[in-house]
């Protein structure tokens, strides 16, 4: 089976492509990319599926570098299957599963389980191993064994390593395996029982605040430790202006530090907590307007390496009721690309090349993935985005089990239309079909 994508604008900074190119896919690989691919008898050849991508943007299949698939252990929130379907619908050809399942991915059995199950899922799944056993922050996980099992990074996401000595040793030890540390920077003492960002609105709403410092002191600590141990530190879901300035200063000194930001931290402020909508409860919390503005500016100036969803699906019950008792997390896979398009590309803050860097090139570089982008011979992972397909975010239409999005009701003007993984269409929204196919 062949697929020919015609007349779209193809954007891939990895291969210096930006323009009208046709792409021919055969046997899971890109056969040819050219300004115009002419195949004799094309219209009558039933072995070739033609995608007319006029007006569409064709990019390498996007990669989400921060995803919670919840399986094993929390299948009521999400499974590998449903999480991957959500990813496909959102325009991702690959996700990166964080290790905080139950059991934690601190051993090769959990990593193998994920690998096995993901061979039957809609998109590719990269795995992350934990830094410490059970992510308890006490003793090192078998990092070498995890590396051998194929994890792409190490993280105790959700459960920050509070003990600086353990973190130092983890970094030192991990260097032998060339694995980046994806750090969820949070000082648990400073966060305490906090449920929203500290500021005027936490005071107004009477909700226990989480200070910015709880993130920033750990960003500072981890930068210092990374500098000392000479490893690659990646800051997860960075949310404050202060963290940004710490990363900026560290880079000036030559520290190998990268960072990601989520769409919700780029778009929503702490004011959104108004009315105690538990879908706005997330960790790190939504921050002040000043922080959001600083992150936006940094993103448009190329200082942010990646946009990642921190897709954190929860059940209806997890989010039902009192704000301070609801679970932290936002279901983000299906809105991320449309939100970045709406708020950054459409407004002229960044172009499509930058989006592809943020959601494909840089995540792949940070995770050392062997991907080649859009070129002849490479694996055919492709996303086709329709910038003129307006839609309204509706919880019930999400493929994810997690309907916990604070963007419900948002009207967005563009939407992912087709996701292709290894040459196969896994998501098709042409004509509003909204179908998962695999």
């Amino acid at each position: 089976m062949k697929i020919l994508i015609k007349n779209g604008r193809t954007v891939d900074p990895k291969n210096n492509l930006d323009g009208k190119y046709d792409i021919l896919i055969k046997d899971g690989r890109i056969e040819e990319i050219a300004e115009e691919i002419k195949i004799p008898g094309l219209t009558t050849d039933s072995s070739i599926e033609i995608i007319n991508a006029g007006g569409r943007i064709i990019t390498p299949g996007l990669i989400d570098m921060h995803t919670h698939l919840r399986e094993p252990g929390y299948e009521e929130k999400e499974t590998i299957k449903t999480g991957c379907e959500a990813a496909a619908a959102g325009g991702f050809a690959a996700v990166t599963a964080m290790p905080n399942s139950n059991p934690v991915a601190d051993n090769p059995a959990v990593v193998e389980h994920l690998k096995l199950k993901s061979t039957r899922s809609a998109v590719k799944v990269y795995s992350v191993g934990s830094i410490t056993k059970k992510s308890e922050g006490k003793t090192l996980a078998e990092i070498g064994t995890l590396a051998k099992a194929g994890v792409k990074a190490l993280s105790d996401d959700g459960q920050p390593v509070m003990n600086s000595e353990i973190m130092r040793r983890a970094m030192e030890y991990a260097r032998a395996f060339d694995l980046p540390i994806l750090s969820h920077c949070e000082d648990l003492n400073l966060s305490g029982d906090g449920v929203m960002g500290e500021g005027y609105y936490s005071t107004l709403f009477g909700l226990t605040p989480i200070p910015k410092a709880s993130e920033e002191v750990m960003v500072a600590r981890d930068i210092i430790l990374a500098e000392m141990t000479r490893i690659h530190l990646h800051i997860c879901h960075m949310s404050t202006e202060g963290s940004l300035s710490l990363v900026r200063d560290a880079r000036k000194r030559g520290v190998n530090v990268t960072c990601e930001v989520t769409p919700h931290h780029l778009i929503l402020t702490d004011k959104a907590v108004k009315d105690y909508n538990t879908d706005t409860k997330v960790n790190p919390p939504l921050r002040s307007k000043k922080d959001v503005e600083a992150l936006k500016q940094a993103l448009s100036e190329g200082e942010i390496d990646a946009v990642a969803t921190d897709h954190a699906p929860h059940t209806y019950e997890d989010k039902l009721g009192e704000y301070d008792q609801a679970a932290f997390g936002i279901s983000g896979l299906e809105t991320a690309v449309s939100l970045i398009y709406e708020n950054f590309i459409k407004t002229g803050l960044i172009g499509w090349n930058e989006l592809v860097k943020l959601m494909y090139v840089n995540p792949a570089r940070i995770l050392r993935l062997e991907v080649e982008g859009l070129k002849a011979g490479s694996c055919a992972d492709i996303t086709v985005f329709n910038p003129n397909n307006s839609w309204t975010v509706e919880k019930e239409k999400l493929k994810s089990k997690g309907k916990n999005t604070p963007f419900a009701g948002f009207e967005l003007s563009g939407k992912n239309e087709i996701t292709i993984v290894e040459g196969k269409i896994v998501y098709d929204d042409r004509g509003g079909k909204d179908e998962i196919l695999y």
Partner: protein
Amino acid sequence: MTLTKKDFLGLYDTDAEEIEEILNTARAMKDILTRSVKKVPTLRGKTVINLFYEPSTRTKFSFNLAAKRLSADVMSISKSTSSITKGESLLDTAKTMEVMGSDVVVVRHSSPGAAKFLAENISAAVLNAGDGAHSHPTQALLDMYTIREKLGRLAGLKVLIVGDIAHSRVARSNIWGLKKMGAEVSVVGPLTLIPTEIEKMGVKVYSNLDKALEGADVVNILRIQMERQESGLFPSIREYRELYGMNKERLKKAGKDLLVMHPGPMNRGIEIESSVADSSQSVITEQVKNGVAIRMALLYLLAGREIKNEDID
């Protein structure tokens, strides 16, 4: 009647005219409370449920009494003696109350926003009796009522709130209410107990009680909770008493016109000396009395909407 919303959740979105209406209605209610027969048939056939998720003596008792004075059927549910201990959610408990035919659900809960959440999910009128550190509107209303009764006005008065502002729903509600009625509000306490950016709520912040007391017409002293000391927010009860305790020297220096208030329950000898609490300048017991009138007023305004005004006479 100007109170048109289904629920009464707080003073943040209550305007001065509505506050005026409640205070005036409370005055009529207070008259009832001074009669020899302290009961009117106004809310006969109406059902009021007190849903208390936090321990409370005076607020619960006050709401109970208020409902009874108006002849409503009233039932109280406490966390410890109900299905809540079996893990029933706030929503399900309230829905149960609702289908049994309650007209007003009075709710006290430790989570900010809990009353609002209920209000959005049940058709009965919800009356907020305190939600976490967010809001405690009936307390603020009874405080305002008491001040106005004693000093004749609210506009232009200088009101100082002392103590744990960060964790206080009483402080927030008083700020919203008093500001709307034209008073000037200041807060004072250990800086660890002053919440971030509270200045934006239009209040002055002090860390020194003696300075803050200068020129104040009213001092409202908040209860200090011992667990705040245990969690490291201030070093000791001894030092708190010395720096932020209202004692007779401070009262003397402030002058005879200073009105002393406390929402209760008091830690006598800590945030307030007995000699101050029991002084002629203290209106603490008056506050409790007025609390019943305020709650009667609100129950009447919420549950008695279709009942004509004359019926309360």
